[in-house]
């Protein structure tokens, strides 16, 4: 059990930054540049871990504890998500609720830490984060309900096909809408374009990055690592639904999973290269579209069940 947990963390910690490197490389290639190394996120993390923290005047313990809470939350969520043939160390009926709640806890501390500095820029980011979280959480729950009904199970591992994968032949239309909705939620939750721009630091229209303005050194490394792991988690939830292929060879399963994750990262990179960040007051429309997609997915599911 403990070995499984440690191995799970080890696996995530080692492979997650690579995905961010893939996204950056795809974006560079599309715009005709060579781009940074695929391992650049690792170098960034190592650099940050070797730096001191600088705190601003007047911040309290909430600010100092929030990076640890955020990273711990992501590591906890990891334990409930299966990675390909690597089964989730903890799975129980209703674990989806725990996932959402732990994500919310990390969000609470991130917002509280941003407000703790008392700076209006960070307040701006915090306010937007709180607002978009309301919409994306509702869409996420809609997806989870649809998946519960499709898989007739209440644990994430069950939904992602630990014992019987969801079949595209049988559930095609509903599953397609749920996947599209989850993809939008993933973009929003991970602060990718078109909702937020993870690259710029000074633009006043940002959400996630602006909340990290006052974090530095190891604290920033924690936050950065947490964001990377969060992307990995959402990818690991999406990929098994899109590619419900299971062979009897664990090695091939892992290869399929890894290929799917890299493909998903490349897709995110393509989305980021092909569109601009949309205006802030239209983000809510995008999230409401995600909600509507999941809603229609649910209706199709219910209608199938009624037949």
């Amino acid at each position: 059990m403990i070995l499984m947990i440690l191995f799970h963390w080890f696996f995530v910690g080692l492979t997650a930054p690579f995905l961010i490197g893939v996204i950056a490389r795809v974006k560079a290639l599309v715009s005709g540049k060579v781009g940074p190394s695929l391992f650049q996120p690792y170098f960034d993390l190592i650099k940050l871990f070797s730096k001191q923290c600088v705190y601003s005047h007047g911040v309290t313990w909430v600010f100092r504890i929030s990076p640890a809470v955020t990273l711990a939350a992501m590591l906890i969520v990891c334990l409930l998500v299966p990675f390909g043939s690597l089964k989730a160390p903890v799975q129980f009926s209703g674990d989806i609720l725990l996932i959402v709640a732990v994500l919310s806890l990390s969000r609470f501390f991130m917002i509280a830490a941003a407000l703790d500095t008392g700076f209006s820029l960070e307040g701006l980011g915090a306010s937007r984060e709180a607002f978009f979280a309301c919409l994306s959480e509702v869409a996420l729950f809609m997806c989870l309900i649809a998946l519960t009904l499709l898989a007739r199970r209440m644990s994430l591992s069950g939904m992602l096909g630990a014992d019987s994968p969801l079949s595209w032949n049988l559930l095609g239309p509903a599953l397609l809408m749920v996947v599209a909705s989850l993809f939008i939620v993933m973009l929003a939750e991970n602060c990718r374009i078109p909702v937020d721009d993870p690259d710029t630091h000074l633009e006043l229209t940002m959400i996630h990055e602006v909340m990290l303005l006052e974090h530095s050194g190891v604290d920033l490394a924690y936050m950065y690592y947490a964001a990377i792991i969060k992307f990995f988690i959402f990818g690991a939830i999406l990929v098994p639904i899109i590619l419900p292929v299971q062979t009897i060879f664990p090695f091939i399963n892992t290869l399929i999973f890894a290929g799917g994750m890299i493909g998903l990262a490349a897709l995110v990179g393509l989305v980021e290269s092909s569109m601009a960040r949309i205006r802030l007051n239209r983000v809510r429309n995008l999230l409401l579209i995600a909600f509507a997609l999941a809603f229609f997915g649910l209706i199709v599911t219910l209608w199938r069940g009624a037949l």
Partner: protein
Amino acid sequence: MESFLQIAWPVPFGELALKIDPLSLVFLCPVIILLICAGAYGVGYMRPYWGKRPLGAHVGFYLLFALALLLIVTANNVILFLGAWETMTITTFFLIIFSDEKEAVRKAGFLYLIASHCATFCLLIMFFLMAHFAGSMDFTVMSKVGFPLELAGIIFLLALAGFGVKAGFLPLHVWLPYAHPAAPAHISALLSGVAIKMGIYGLCRVLWIVGILPAWCGYMLIIIGVICGVMGVLYALGQHELKKLLAYHSIENIGIITLGLGVGLLGRSYDQPFLAVLGFGGGLLHVINHSLFKGLLFLAAGSVISKTHSGDIDQLGGLAKTMPVTSVLFLVGALSICGLPLFNGFISEFIIFFGLFQGVLALPLLGVIFSVLGIIALALMGALAIACFTKVYGAVFSGQPRSIDSGLEYSKTVDETTSIWMLAPMIILAWLCAWIGLAPKMMSGITFLGGACLARVDLFLIDMSRIYIPLSTTIGIAFLFSGLILGLLVMRRFILGAEPQPVREAWGCGFTRVSVRAQYTASSFARSIIDLVKNILQARQYGAKAGGYFPLRARLASSVRDVSEDMMFRPLLAGLTRLSRKIDARRVLYTQMYLMYIFLFLIFLLVWKLR
């Protein structure tokens, strides 16, 4: 398990009886805990009034109020219940109007009194119907009678109207946001923690007595829960006054409780005992949890207000440095009310969520639709509550005081010299929140017992491991989580070394030395959410933006109106006043006419009876 204790004593024309069954027990826990904690807090809170005010009367009413609460929960007889109910209403009125030199306080008190008495009218009719059909005033006897479905429906509606006023169901909640801020802090804590729960207790008792209800009752409860919950938290987001905001959050939590009861009722109607126990048990656990964390929050808010003499969130700030203990306690309450892991709110919301997902899988199509509605609403409430409480914590305890004139002055004078009488009750409540959050076995056991009592099933016949295993795994994960946080903090310490890290001017994109007024305020924090729903909330903005090249003074104020007050009750009451004026104008001014009316009425009665 029928009951733990039964006492009966004969009185002329009948018999009064006390009984403690699992349902009473569930409500007794928060009543006793909160009465003790709020009482102790009151000793410290009322110290400045010693010798200046008739505190003896206040204490007397407090004790009478306590007695009434205990009687309501344990009464097993209609007469005793109604007597205690009225005693509670009247004593609460006197407790609310402690600062009766302020007109707003007197108005809030009268609003409460009038609303409560309109509610009691419905209760009288309801109990009359029940007692008439059952032929007894005794709750136990009544519960053995099978009420016909139509009568059961009418009784249910009357109970909703009567107990709904006390509980604060949405259009009937108008007294609540006025009474809570008007009362002293420990009374607000009791009002929100216990008094409005008596409405829920009454509703539960009726659900217990009337064993078979039509299926629409469950759906109706879910709809009420959804409306109360979502609207309550939205109204709370728009408030600028600390205690009023907490009062609106009580409406939200009542919504969550009602949602749980609705799920339980659906389970009972569709013969799904596990679902029924989950719904009722989750709702009842949230009753206990809400009184603990809302009591804590009101007491902490009272400490803030008694120190700064201001409840205006947009003026406060930076109190985490001057009142560190209170700020930690408030944060515990905030985390609990948002339903986040490690604290008690999560446990009850987890059980209700679990029940709703169970409903999605087990109920027929209509039930599935309502369960989905419930899940979505609960998710939305959770996210909005996080927005609301980060707003409160951030605005009150973080940053720096926002008002130049009064703020800077209090930031120097406020210190943590809160008396032990005020701190100890808050620490106890915070500890209980964490205790239920990390070791929920005992409390959830009691509430599941109460839930089984409401669901009218034997708990031993249901496979409760289906909920206990997820719960215990969740608790294990919570411990791992806190260990991990600690581990990461230690790791940071290990990497950075023991010497303290440098503290510098905040970077803030290069903006340094900005005025404290330029901090993000609570209203601006909530604005993007309020803007999305401004048509529902009737959000208004007054004042003008600064314009031109050399802007002069500008002023902006915003407010959120209560729709049910402005659009329902004001027009309704205005119409009633007009109607009574008209009747008054037609009044006949000589006595013979009245004699004739009486005569005609007697003839009518005679004909009616002779028929």
